């Protein structure tokens, strides 16, 4: 056969798909590249680390090798008081840096440049670890948030910073976001108040620069539950969060949220084994009306998954 229909057809199909990909992939990439990161974007990137979800550093997706966010009220080196307390992101030696640090262009042309020149971000190495913070500076009459490398600027080491913060002011944000991803919270909750009437209840929709360096964004598509992008602004009670995670029906009788009692793990804060069966029996009695108060929920251990999850909610979702 001289005329091969499938050859002409294949060329036409390839050409059309190529054109479509130029319009829908290449053109938007120019817009995305020019987006300057906001404070929210820098905060998310620095507190999440390189990748949430499956990665070399965290193959079992348990939140291993993630940066730790701390709230500092005193200088880790000099011991001077810091008022108001500041937020810092501690990368212990070997923890992979956030995309914002690895690829300064990711944070936008101006912000990336500012972080390198003023913030000394380029001097940090993963082998030695580093402490980062977000500062504000002026370029051409406009204020920009940029990343500061406090290890280079102030000599703060990761170990000193963690010690100065103590457990009380340590927030396992990266690990908490990992729990959010693995437990599939995002199948029902969204992180995207819509640009319609939505924002009157759920708060302001995110802006263009709020996502730079975030992976995965996971803002959800199927809302079976309230949007939680700003949930900590509406409700900042850790006690309420704890009860709600253990059994949502304790604080909201009509909720259809699953129980996340298994995030407590085996051992409670005092090193005792958690007796879930006893709790369930007592809860059944409470539901049946033979008991006046519901049983107390166990206190979770400092390294439990639920602690990290609540840390993330109360720190990042404001």
């Amino acid at each position: 056969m001289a005329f091969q229909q499938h050859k002409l057809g294949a060329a036409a199909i390839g050409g059309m798909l190529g054109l479509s990909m130029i319009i829908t992939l290449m053109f938007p990439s120019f817009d995305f590249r020019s987006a300057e990161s906001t404070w929210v974007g820098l905060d998310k990137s620095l507190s999440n680390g390189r990748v949430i979800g499956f990665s070399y550093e965290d193959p079992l997706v348990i939140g291993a090798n993630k940066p730790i966010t701390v709230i500092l009220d005193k200088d880790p080196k000099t011991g001077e008081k810091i008022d108001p307390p500041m937020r810092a992101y501690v990368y212990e030696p070997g923890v992979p840096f956030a995309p914002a640090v690895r690829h300064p262009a990711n944070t936008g042309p101006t912000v990336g440049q500012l972080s390198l020149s003023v913030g000394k971000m380029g001097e940090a190495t993963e082998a030695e670890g580093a402490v980062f913070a977000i500062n504000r500076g002026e370029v051409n009459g406009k204020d920009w948030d940029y990343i500061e490398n406090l290890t280079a600027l102030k000599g703060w080491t990761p170990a000193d910073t963690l010690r100065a913060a103590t457990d009380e002011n340590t927030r396992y944000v990266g690990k908490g976001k990992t729990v959010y991803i693995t437990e599939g919270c995002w199948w029902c909750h969204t992180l995207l108040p819509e640009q319609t009437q939505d924002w009157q209840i759920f708060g302001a929709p995110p802006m263009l620069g709020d996502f730079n360096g975030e992976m995965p964004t996971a803002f959800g598509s199927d809302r079976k539950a309230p949007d939680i992008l700003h949930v900590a602004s509406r409700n900042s009670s850790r006690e309420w969060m704890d009860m709600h995670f253990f059994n949502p029906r304790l604080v909201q009788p009509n909720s259809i949220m699953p129980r996340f009692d298994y995030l407590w793990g085996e051992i409670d804060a005092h090193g005792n084994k958690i007796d879930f069966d006893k709790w369930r029996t007592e809860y059944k009695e409470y539901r049946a009306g033979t008991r006046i108060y519901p049983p107390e929920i166990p206190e979770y251990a400092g390294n439990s998954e639920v602690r990290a999850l609540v840390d993330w909610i109360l720190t990042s979702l404001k």
Partner: protein
Amino acid sequence: MLIKYLFAKNEDIPAGSSSVFFGFSAIFWFVIGTGLGSFNAAKLAFPDWVTGSEMFAFGHMRQVHVLAVILGWISMAFAMTMMYMTPALGNTKLWSEKLGLWNAFLWNVGLSVGLFLLWMGITSGREYSDIIWPVDIAIMFGVLLPLGINVWMTIAHRRTQGIYITNWFFGACVFFIIVVFAVGQSPELFNLTGLTEAYMTFWFAHNVLGLWITPVAAAIAYYTIPKLTGNPLYSHRIGHLHFWSIIAFYSTPASHHLMSAPLPEWLKSFASVEGVLILIPAVAFVANILLTMKGKWSMFVENIETKFSITGVLLAIPLNMQGGFQQTRAINWYIHGTGWIVAHAHLALLGMSTFLEIAAVYFGLQQILRRKLYSLALANFHYWFVLIGFCIYWISMTIAGLIQGAGKIYEVPYIDVVVAEHPYMIARWVGGTMVFTGNLVWLYNMYMTAREGTVVPAGRYAHEMAYER
């Protein structure tokens, strides 16, 4: 079993073996997928049912349901039909039966591994791209590329002058899914972040539907309806209008899934306009198939394969009417992220697409096995359970979505929306369970067909013969 042919010589493998392997695998995954769907729906209606373990947590199972149905049932049913329709339409044999068998085998292995890891919570956290990238690479080379090579080589070695419309779709759509899969998974491989990642996730999600699931399902109908009725396709030209307009218009509207995200406004407007143009291929397809039925409408009642096929085509009408308009800004703001979208997604996958595939699997397995369907009564049971179950699901979720949309714009406290949706969540579970029950019966019916169905004599079609049971 067919496993024994994996190491046989290609010439020694009976024609159609890979199709049978794919066919039974697809039905099996359909039973698994709908069973998980039913279980998940029960958890939404009754949250305190089965708790205390992450293995039975909704968040661990939802994505397993979605991907078992898309990659297990729908895509394997596509592969099954490609393995027998492509050679039949080219008047030739499948390029390599052995490659087809290995393809089916690796597909089952790869999907099992990927879904097991997802169930354990080992995920990339990207909707529809949840499977982690090492498994993605395995899917690329063990599943998609072998399928593509087999289809393309069979078309290239055809013994007909022209290429029938079904084969145009098959050849092009396998190419699309390979490109779309590679591009869609690239954020995980190259650590692309931020809005780029979000956009690429939905670029993939959209194009899997637009360039794989709906066009291949339509291509299947272009084969089954003329074959079953004996009428030639009403118009090959309208078929080509469908084919080329799908490529031109439906490869572009990905960002209409993210109308409320801070994407560039020009991109959203462009996507919205292109999205409405889905009506061109949709009308071309539905009209073409329904006009092909001319003079044979009694088969819609009397013949089980035609019944499934035409139901699927008819469901394409509300599907595309919703699909074309719900993504415009005028409507999207109301229904975005609500149960309406869930209903629409099930209309596409469980409604239109699944009905067309079920017909092709019924037809193909009977032809290849040379066995008449075991029981018409069970097949009718299957049809009505899937159809009624689907309708209950679709209607209840559409109503739930409208309630949710109203709650959104009138600023109703969210918990009141949850309470209002509760009856519809129960209805959703009932509908999903009916679909699952129907599929269990189908699996039994096809198994018995392979074992005990009446033998179809050479040169005859199974659907020409009378049922003996």
